């Protein structure tokens, strides 16, 4: 069974968050976006790489950023560091795959609030949002 076919988790609509998604794969963006939208969150921006994220962050001022790690142009970890420099209160959650312990650890040390591991399901994503916001 596929991990993304999780039904809508009963969400707290009061806790609607403005979220920015950073992932070079349109597919992954769509998966996360669908989970978020179904549960009452607003996706304010989608970025195709770290560079894009660094540029869009000040414009959209999202409450939460989902940041992929391996991306062209600028990797997630560098984008994280740049955004944290711009806005030390930025809330960034890393989206990692298996096998990236060290990068995730590095990201957490650099200010990422949490991480989710691909393949992620709706419950995990929402749990993380609930915890960091």
């Amino acid at each position: 069974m596929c991990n993304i076919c999780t039904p809508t988790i009963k969400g707290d609509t009061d806790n609607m968050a403005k979220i920015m998604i950073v992932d070079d794969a349109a597919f992954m963006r769509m998966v996360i976006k669908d989970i978020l939208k179904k549960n009452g969150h607003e996706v304010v921006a989608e970025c195709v790489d770290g560079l894009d994220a660094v540029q869009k962050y000040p414009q959209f001022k999202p409450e939460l950023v989902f940041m992929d790690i391996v991306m062209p142009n600028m990797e997630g970890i560098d984008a994280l560091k740049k955004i944290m420099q711009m806005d030390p209160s930025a809330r960034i959650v890393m989206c990692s795959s298996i096998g990236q312990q060290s990068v995730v650890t590095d990201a957490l040390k650099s200010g990422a609030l949490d991480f989710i591991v691909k393949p992620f399901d709706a419950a995990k994503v929402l749990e993380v949002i609930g915890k960091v916001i």
Partner: protein
Amino acid sequence: MSEYKDIFKAESEEHLQHLNESLLGLEQNPREIEYINTMFRSAHTLKGMSATMGFSTIAELTHEMENLMDMVRKCQVTVSDSLIDILFECLDTLEALVESVDSNKEVNISHLQASLIQAMEGTICAGETISTIANGLAEMVPAGTEGSSGAVPEAATHIRFSDTENESIETAHEDGNRVVEIKVVLDPSCVLKSARSTLVLINLSKMGKIIRCVPSEADLEDEKFNMEFTVILATKEDDPSITGAIRRISEIKAVDISPLYTCETDGSETREKESVEERQQCASAVKRSESVKSIQSVRVNIERLDNLMNLVGELIINKIRLNQLASDLNAKSLDESLANLDRLTNEIQNEVMESRMVPIDQVFSRFPRMIRDLAKHEGKQVNLVIEGKEIELDRTVLDEIGDPLVHLLRNAVDHGIETVEERIKLGKPAAGFVGLSASRQRNSVIIEVEDDGKGMDPVHLRGIAVKKGIMNREEADKLSDTDALNLIFVAGFSGAKTITDISGRGVGMDAVKTKIEALGGTVKVSSVPGSGSSIKLQLPLTVAIIQSLMVTIAGETYAIPLANVVRDVGIKARDIKTIEGKEVILLRGEVLPLLRLCDVLQCPGEAEKKENLIVVVVERMGNSIGFVVDQLLGQQEVIIKTLDNKLLKNTRGFAGATILGDGSVALILDIATLI
């Protein structure tokens, strides 16, 4: 779900293309780090996507590839020919896997995994068994999460503190802190344990000073622990706020806090504040980037574009009807709005056509790999030079030209380019040249495939034609050199002396020509024996709408594609001559065969014996023929509706049908099959 699948497939194909291109690059340039990085990234992205979709086989294979590329990146593995071959094999398998995601077909990848692991020389990173990635998180849990296992000390109750640690505890105590022992148990579904534990440590360090971790921080980072670990923390916070802080982290199963020392006085600032201050200092130094990229393209399903094209077709048909009605009714008041409608529909049509255009690179990009494999297989050296890959074509045309181009390129390598030894003997460079270029000429695109190989000898071709019984010696000798070259397009003609498994099955060029002509294009061949051949394809930009000459035959309206029409002439029946039982007419000194369409199309009713006949001269591949028609109606744009249902598919003579302004249907004549 299928929505996900579509985008998954489309994006996977893109990544496979990147992988292919980079691998080709890497083969030429084994030290180029950019290729290695791109491959690593693409494999990685594919892994994440496929695992999310639950396609475990793809996830497993890409995981191994990613590992391998990582090792290449770190110079732990060197790029060798065999490595490249294995990776190419992986890409082929991945392609097949992505292709077959709908069918759930099982593909065995164990031999590939074995090769990959072998390539990594047994240095594959421990601790990660790929088979578990996509099978869900539950399987990631090591056996026996409850209760610690031998090697790693888990229970903090027996911690022996070093002198420095004891000192820290004392200082903390003096500063008014309490020292607590915090036992954290991770959730069994936790995948990146080390990162999770790091997050716990980071959060705790904001609340005080970490004196000691069991296991050590280094061991935690290396995942050398089961599901639980203990932290000794000097803090001013009370137990509930510490528990709360840890509970805010996901994937935490339990937190247990017990005091080591207690203290009641107050003390100084926490680490959190310090770190925030540091960050703010940095922030002030950073200049914000102001340019923002906006979304420049959206992905649209091909079906939607096809539907849109169809709707535009219907719209144009209705417009034509409306125009006709207005002129029938002589309604002058409609003129202005009809003219506007005309302009708008034309604009829509152009926009829709433009949106269906895709760069020809989508077809070209798979050829470098094919040529490489082919050359390697035949022991030849080939340089493929591609030009004009940015040229755009309607995707219907693009979809169709892939196979013909494969044939032409295979022929160029297989029959054209000589072996390295032969080439050196002939004084040619060792590596053969194969050129593939696209260019735009008004409303058509020219694609040329050329090589600097042995070329084709008209004398030799004539010989083959005679030997194969296509014509007798006398006929063959009459052929001009150009006509002799065109023999290669005749069905059943194969120029290869020996039939290889790659080309030369005698169907190739014939099939190429049929396909291109079905698209409304033309094929031209030229060759110089000893120095190479060139085959030029001329293709229309789009096939959905064509300019036609409308004619009537036995009371029915037909459309003749204007591209084929040379001119129309009026002739007298008495001028018709008969050669070998066929009607011909002498026109400007040339013999023009005549075709009475009412006979060919078996129109009902007795053909009138008229003295004055109208002939439409059409040309196809240098062959001209005159169609005898009853009446010329004029020139018109028609929308092609293909006859692709089962009943009509094999009808010869018609390229399709179209709906006319008055709502009636007219058949479009297919010149290629009529000549």
